[in-house]
């Protein structure tokens, strides 16, 4: 199937299998993107879901260090960089508390990388 989307400001067309994950299409290093203004994990979406959407990756934004809490250490994850970017766009006057809040419920890096998949997937051990 053919899909089209705007990626970092550039229109792209791809021929994909319907079951392709967005992370497989964009590359494993692109773990998070902003999709139509919302921060999402690329391995949780199919590429087909991005059809006719607007995507922004970490590589298209500059790191807004003022919008990253002091406690968050480098190297920053894609999600942290994009989260700071979104916050800087949505609330340029964000206070330290608001910045802390905006980072409080991000997926932790170990979960985002898939090392704890049970946290996201339905649990099938039910009897």
């Amino acid at each position, binding site marked *: *199937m053919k899909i089209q989307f705007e990626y970092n400001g550039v229109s792209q067309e791809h021929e994909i299998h*319907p*079951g392709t994950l967005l992370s497989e299409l964009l590359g494993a290093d692109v773990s998070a993107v902003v999709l139509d203004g919302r921060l999402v994990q690329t391995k949780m979406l199919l590429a087909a879901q991005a059809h006719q959407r607007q995507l922004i990756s970490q590589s298209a934004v500059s790191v807004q260090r003022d919008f990253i809490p002091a406690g968050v250490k480098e190297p920053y994850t894609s999600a942290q960089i994009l989260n700071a970017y979104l916050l800087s766009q949505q609330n340029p006057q964000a206070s330290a508390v608001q910045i802390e809040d905006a980072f409080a419920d991000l*997926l932790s890096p170990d979960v985002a990388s898939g090392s*704890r998949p049970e946290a*996201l997937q339905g649990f099938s051990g039910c009897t």
Partner: protein
Amino acid sequence: MHRQLEEFFYPETLAEAVQKKHDYGEAAAPIAGGTEIVPNLPEGIRCLIDVTRLGLDYVQEDDEFLRIGATSTMHQLAMSPAVARLANGMLSTSCCHGWPKEVRNTATLGGNLVGAGPFADTPPALLALDAEVIVRRVDGDESMDLQDFFVDYRRTAVGQGILTEVRIPKPNLRTRGTFLKFVRSQVDQALVNVAVVVELEDGVCRKVRIALGAIGRTPHRVLEAERALIDKPLVADSIENVASVVTELVDPVIDLRASADYRRELAGLLTRRALQQIAS
């Protein structure tokens, strides 16, 4: 890569979506956020139907009901003032407590219900709020009580239809509610969750709803515990009695995260806390 998928369909209308679901039968499923279905694509699914472009991401209220479109995201619901006004914001809590931002941004209410995961958070809240669901079928809309929607573990009554709306009767001003969830960490699924709604008249419980999740094969109300509180004052003795009834009645699932006894204790404990919160 889900190689079993043969088609990803973008319907332009709900009628097209329903027809496609009808044509494929069990081999097709709607997809919105995808957080349920992408990591857990059921065997036999060959077609996914994108329902995110059909205008089903709304929260509307009238005098009688709060109507929530099935593709409304958890973030949307957590931020909605109308949802927050409902029974002390219990549904808002169930939409944000323990949902990481990236999941909350994509997961939808419809997906949380149709996925029918026993550990999901919104079903107990909606059961306690007497919600009903609207399912669009080829021959028209069908509405059903949410408690009839959950058939078994990860099975619902949606059949060949598509869930389009959740309708919640607006509680009166005497109604209080709360949602509590017990988890080990921020992103874990509930070990037990409980939603309680009580309508109080001069301190006496006139209507009671107690719904539990992560305890059985489906989220469900505990009718006997509800009856134990009807026409009783919401005081320490009656609360203790109801908590005991819940502990006795529940038949918990067992998995590697918690034993049946632990879940049973948690169910009683959370029910007691929920009722105490409402009483205070």
